[in-house]
Every structure is written in C-alpha cells, then in structure tokens.
C-alpha cells in the first residue's frame, strides 16, 4: 500500500522547477565577481553571502591557520569602519552575521531585512579591499583563535583523532592540515602572514556573491554593480595544489586519550569528488553512503550490526562530494561494551564484504531515490541552506548548472554504478584505519 513508484518519485522531482519558490539566477560582473540569486519571497528577509575561493588548503606550507585567522580579523577595522563596527551596524539593523572557513573556501554572511541588502554589500565590498590590521588586534585575536582551538579540538578527543586521521590520509595535499591550524604554527602567525593571504586571495575575481530571499536578480545586480563594480580584479589564477602520490600503502592510526568514553574504529578511503560536468561517480558514492549508513534502522551497517546482531552502538558511513580536490569516504563502527575494536573492525569488513556479494536491495534503492527527490521539496523551505549549497559548490570547482543537474543525476544512477563505486572504494583503494581508545588501566 505504501509502496512508492518511480513515477511518484519523478513527479516530486518534476514539481521543483515550477513552484515559483527558489528561482535561481546567475550573473558575472566585468571584474569577475560571480553572483547567484535565489528568490524566496515568502518573508521580507535576505541572506547576503560573500564567498572567497581561498581556504586552509591554500595556505603556504608551515603557516597553518591563516585562512581562519583572517576570517576573524575581517571583523576588525577598515579604512572607514572601526574595529567591530561591521557587526555593530548589522545588529543595529536587526541583522545577524557570521563567517566560516573550510579547506576550499572562506565565507561571510548576514541575515537582514531585505531592504538592508545594499548596506550589507557596501560594507562587504569595503572589507574586501580596505582591511586595516593593527598589531594589537592581531595579538588579541590570536589568543581568541587559540581559545577556539582549545575549545573545539583540544578539549575533544574525537576531534584530535580526526585531525590525526586526516594528516595520515593526505601524504602531500594540504587537506592534511586542520582548518583552525596546528597550535604551534598558529602561535607564530603574524600580520604579514595574514596580510599576504588577504591581498592575494580577497578580490572580486576570486569571490562569489550569493543572495537568497526576498529580492529580484535585477535589484541584486544593480546593487552589486554599485558596490563591487568599481573594485579592480587581481588577475587570480586557478588554484593548483600539491597532489597526492600514488596511493600504495594502507596506514593505521592509534590514538589513546583518557577522556574517551566509547572507543571506535574508523576507516578513511580517499575518494573522488564532484567535478564540473562529471558527477556520476560522486553521485554513485553519495548513494552508496546512503545505502550503507544513511538510516539507523534500514541501511546496511546499522541494520546488521546495531539491530540484528546488537554488536554496535552506532555504525555508519560518510561521504562529502563537494570538494575541490580528492575527498574521503569513511566507515565507522562504535562497538557495544565487550566487543573489542579488532572485532569491530572485522564486523565492519564482514558486513561490507557481504554487501559486495549480495548487491543492493532494489526496494531500499527506490526509497533512497524517493527521499532524495523529496529533499528537493524540503530544501526550498530553507533559503539559507540553498544559498550555502550554491556558495560551497561554486568555491569547490562546480558550476550553477552542476548544482541544478545533481538531483537528476542522482535519480539516474543505476544499482550497477553504485556497485562499481563500492568496488572502487572497498577493493581497489588503500585506506587509513584508526582506533580511538582510552588507556587500558581506566
């Protein structure tokens, strides 16, 4: 009775473009600034985002943490704004603002009433070029980012372990460094480090403007011309980072920390990411991750290890395809007390080997496809999330067309393609396996 059909699945997909909510438009200014406008006229609000194609993986060797440090310092003084005045102005206009840094991008955003968009762009354009850093701001803010690292990483054994896992996975590519930076390098970052990075990467031809909410593309274009149009481009060249050597050896990481409550095993495989015009393998890997770990009761790993055998507290997978360079496919297993990590690793391997033999349950495959289609409906309820998707895509090497084709590509992936992706990862790829444990005498 509740069985869905492929027709139902496609009907949901077919609805999305005709709804009138979340219309997407793109344009590029003469100076190279790329812009995406997502219309949602249900509330008189707007999200203004400016993304730079520069992140932690673009830092010079040995100077980790610059991209994120600069993100903090962008809230300090410019030629015309005092330190802190940017956020004060946003708040005085009823808005909220923040920023984020990843390996491939740094992004700044404000949520405000739609009639304040011009002011936001004016200030954002100002700090793209006119940042004024004092040594005092650098000193104080360095202490803040060290406190941030202490809070988010050093206080969290799982985060420390993940950092070690990444460092072991990427032998040569700068994805191996943490976004926040290694503490010993963060402590030495100075004004010149930050300013060089700022001048090199913060320019209109290296930025993507994403505006979502109660606006029209014409309004956004006029405002963008007004505030960003006069900024000179830097003649930025495409990013070329050190690449990985052939992946010939499995590696293992053991990390012991007295603060660990539930030991677990994780295995990371290097995996292909979404490339412009070439997203099928990434789509197959995305579905593979859904099939193996996407749902607590019905996907393969938790169904077998948590529900049927009761040998795991949590077992799952993760795969994030939106990356400029090679990404990671992860499998992890948190065993129940009494099951060792060696056994947990063997459990994980056994379930995956069985999956490679059995293949995909067609009904599960259909359900997952239908949920992907439905997600296109739910996504439209959240303009900020849509804005983030486009911003991340355009700073990770993808185009607007790639984002818009993605749901159809997902819908068209066959079970055979998913199994081919599974074999690529599980049979042909060397990996890093890690154990996170507490010391034995605890």
């Amino acid at each position, binding site marked *: *009775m*509740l069985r*869905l059909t492929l027709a139902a699945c496609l*009907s*949901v997909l077919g609805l999305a473009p005709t709804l*009138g*909510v979340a219309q997407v438009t793109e344009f590029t200014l003469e100076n190279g600034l790329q812009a995406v406008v997502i219309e949602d006229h*249900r*509330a*008189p*609000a707007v999200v203004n985002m400016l993304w730079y194609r520069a992140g932690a993986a673009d830092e010079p060797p040995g100077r980790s943490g610059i991209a994120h440090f600069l993100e903090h310092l962008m*809230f300090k003084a410019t030629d*015309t*704004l005092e330190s*802190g*005045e940017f*956020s*004060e102005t946003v*708040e*005085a*206009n*009823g808005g*909220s603002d923040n920023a984020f840094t990843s390996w491939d991008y740094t992004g700044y955003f404000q949520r*405000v*009433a739609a009639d*304040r968009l011009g*002011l936001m762009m*004016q200030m954002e354009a100002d700090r793209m070029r006119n940042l004024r850093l004092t040594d005092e701001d650098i000193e*104080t803010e*360095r*202490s*803040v980012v060290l*406190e941030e690292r*202490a*809070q988010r990483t050093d*206080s969290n054994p799982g985060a420390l372990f993940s950092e070690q896992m990444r460092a072991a996975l990427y032998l040569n590519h700068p994805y191996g460094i943490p976004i926040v930076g290694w503490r010993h390098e963060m402590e030495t970052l100075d004004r010149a480090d930050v300013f060089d990075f700022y001048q090199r990467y913060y320019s209109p031809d290296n930025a993507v403007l994403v505006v979502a909410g109660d606006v029209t593309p014409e309004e956004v274009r006029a405002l963008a011309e007004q505030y960003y149009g006069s900024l000179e481009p830097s003649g930025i060249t495409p990013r070329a980072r050190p690449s990985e050597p052939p992946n010939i050896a499995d590696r293992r990481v053991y990390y012991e920390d*007295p603060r*660990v*409550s539930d030991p677990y095993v994780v295995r990371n495989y290097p995996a292909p990411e979404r490339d412009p015009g070439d997203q099928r393998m990434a789509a197959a890997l995305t579905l593979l991750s859904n099939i193996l770990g996407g*749902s*607590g*009761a*019905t996907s393969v790993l938790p169904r077998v290890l*948590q*529900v049927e055998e*009761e040998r795991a*507290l949590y077992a799952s997978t993760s795969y994030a395809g939106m990356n400029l360079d090679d990404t990671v496919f992860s499998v992890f297993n*948190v065993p*129940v007390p009494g099951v060792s990590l060696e056994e947990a690793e063997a459990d994980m391997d056994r379930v995956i080997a069985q999956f490679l033999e059995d293949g995909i349950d067609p009904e599960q495959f259909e*359900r*997952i496809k*239908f*949920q992907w*289609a439905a997600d296109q*409906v*739910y996504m*439209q*309820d*959240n*303009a900020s999330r849509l804005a983030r998707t486009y911003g991340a895509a355009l700073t990770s090497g993808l185009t607007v067309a790639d984002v818009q084709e993605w749901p159809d590509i997902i819908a068209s992936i066959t079970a055979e393609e998913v199994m081919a992706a599974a074999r690529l990862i599980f049979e042909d790829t060397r990996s890093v396996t890690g154990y996170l444990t507490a010391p034995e005498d605890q």
Partner: protein
Amino acid sequence: MIRAFIAFLVVLATPAMAQVDIREVTSPGGITAWLVQDESIPFVALDIRFEGGTSLDAEGRRGATYLMTGLLEEGAGTLDSRAYATEVESLAARFSFEANTDSVVITARMLTENRDEAAELLRLAIQEPSFEQDDLDRVRTQVLSIIDSNANDPREIASAAFYAQAFGDHPYASAIEGTAESVTALTRQDLIDAHRAVFARDRLYVGAAGDISPEELGLLLDRLLGDLPETGAPLPGPAPYNLTGGVTVIDYPTPQSTALFGQRGIAFNDPDFFPAFVLNQILGGGNFRSRLMQEIRVDRGLTYGISTYLALFDYGPMMMGQFSSSNELVAEAIDVLRAEWATVAENGVTQAELEAAQLYMTGSYPLRFDGNSNIAGILAGMQADDMPIDYINTRNDRVWAVTQDDVRAMAARLMDADGLRVVVVGQPEGLESTD
C-alpha cells in the same frame, strides 16, 4: 562617508514587518492548533508539544520519559522497528521526537502527495508505540553510552553539578537521561506508564505551517491526537532554589576549563519580563557587542565566546551563561565576569547599549518567521508560553517601551554578583572552590 550613510539608515528605517497570518483552528473533536497556511511548497510542517516533559518521571524512574521518547519510532502498531522506518522512508516523511526538561516535542514534515499515509505512521508512533523488549534493550544501551559520554564531557559535568546544587529534590536537579542505575532498572511497564503520563490532551500545543487548509488540519488533528486521554500525570510543582554564590571547581584533566554560571532568573509571565529580556541581550545575548563578549573576548582574548541567557524553566527560571577559557586564563575571565555583573547590577546599562539592543531585537524578530518548520515551532512555543495570538504584533512595541530606568531597576532587582555561582570543570590555575 560610509558611517554617515549607516547612521542615516538606522535612524529612518525600521525593517518591514513580516506578514504572519495566524489562524486558530479547532478540530471537530475540540483540539486547538495555530496555523499559518502557505501553499507555495507542497508539504506541511507540524510541531506538537506536550507540557511536562522529563519532569514527569515517576519517583525512582529517572530517565523513563527520555527513553520512552527515544522508542516512539522504534516500532508501533503491527510494524517492528525496521518495518516502521521502512514505511517512513517510503513516504519521505521526516519525524523527530525529543524529550526536554519541560516538554516532549514531536515535529513532522509530510509531503502533500502522501500526507494521509504519513499521518497514519505518525499517529502510530504517538498512540501505539510497541516498546518491544529487544528495542528497549537496544535503545537503552545507546542511552547508557550517552550517560557514560556525558561523564567525560566537561560541559555535561558542569551542568550536572550546577543543577544538583540549585534544585534540591526536584527533577530539575538531575540529568534528563537518568543515571546508569536508574536507566538499567527501567522496565517495559515503566515506559508504558511514562507514555501514559506524558501524552494527554490537557497539555497539548500544536503549531502547523505550510500546504494544508484549516479543515484538513482539523481532521488531521483528530486523527493524530483525538484518542489521547484527557488528562496526564500531575505537573511538577515549583522547584526549590538552593543555589549560593561562589565557585565550584571540578578537577578534570583538560587544557581548557569550561565554566557554567548562573543565579535566580525571572519567569516569562512576570510583568517586568521585557526589561529583563532586554537586559540579558545587552549583557550577554550572544552577539559580538554584548557587554561580556566585549570585555572578555574582544578586549582581552580570554575566550572564544561567552553568552548569557534567561533559562525559562517552567518551575524555576534561571539567568545563566557559559564560556571556556584555557586553564591559565579562566581565573581572570571569572574576575572580569563578576566585576561586570556587579557593575551592571549597580549602574544598569548605557542609553547607547539600550538602543542598540532594541534595534537588534526588533529588527531581527521578523526574520525568524522564515520557513514552514520554523513557523510551526514558533506557533507551538507561543501557545505553550501562554502568549496571545496577536503577540507577534505587540512584541516589538514592548521591547521599544523598555527605558534605561526600567533596565537599571531590573538589573538591581535581578543581578546579584555575590549570589552568582560559577562551576568550573578543568584544571584552572589560581582558582579554588569557595565551599
């Protein structure tokens, strides 16, 4: 030049107010809900709240409501746990079940094209959960692992100590998940009893937003909730307040200390709530320009972030806050915190701070009403807090009505630097427990 332009805008313009058209819907069976109807996206969001929450745990059964809520989607009616999940996935419905201190909250998003089938699954979870022993044992193991993790989490350690000191023998004094001992002892009958205690029509609040008509919503409410019993377990009474001023240090080997601080707060229905609301915004309301953020992060670099909040517990409101600082910095941060607390209690805030907070609070309010899921949650929350249906239209005027004198009087009444308790988990330098 930029500055002049900014000032100009701030003075003249007040952001456009969102048009939030709320209808009160009463079902044929007499269940009330607030609805914002909007057909632009083909799904509906529901937020269903039952007052009481984990504070309804029976004596000696701490953790029963939390575990019960975790089991609602683990098998219901004739469907076992896997079959239930399979059916929900087939319809791409999204349900969540959450147990809180004062409420159990159920949210749902259902596609228009299969709403009746999805609603039937939700009805099963609310009204006919199976609580099979296998599922109970599996979820119990997960809860025990959460309890175990919390014992190693500095924030959780701080919370546990803080609430234990504050609330005596009230349920608020202990963690909602229960203890390893209490959870291990829970039986299937305990969960059935907890279910009977929590889900009743006399404590129910519903918000709905999206693609559904009032008539359709009425029928849906009766189907989902109509068969629930009229009354549930008696609601808990007021909590005692046992907190004293001072510092509690809990030794934990970590490079950064976590601090949780607080004192007596103010209830939402207090006639002077709005001055307190504005006061908190100025003191530590979560943005960069708050007094504490400015003093402790921006000027001194002692933390990544500090915030305060009015914790509106139904039976014991608190004014609380938190931050983390490296072990060698935390003592200084606490000195600054206590000094600011005393300064504001004595002098109130500046007119500039007041106006900035009012601009922010009134300007940001309309921005909350974006998206069906957010709106449904706000509508249910407003009812649970006994707000009138026109609250949205009057709320900003009440924020604007607060004067500098109102804030000064409220700060003097509410804030007590000597009564402030700070619980620190870590290995802070130069800081010891005061009692």
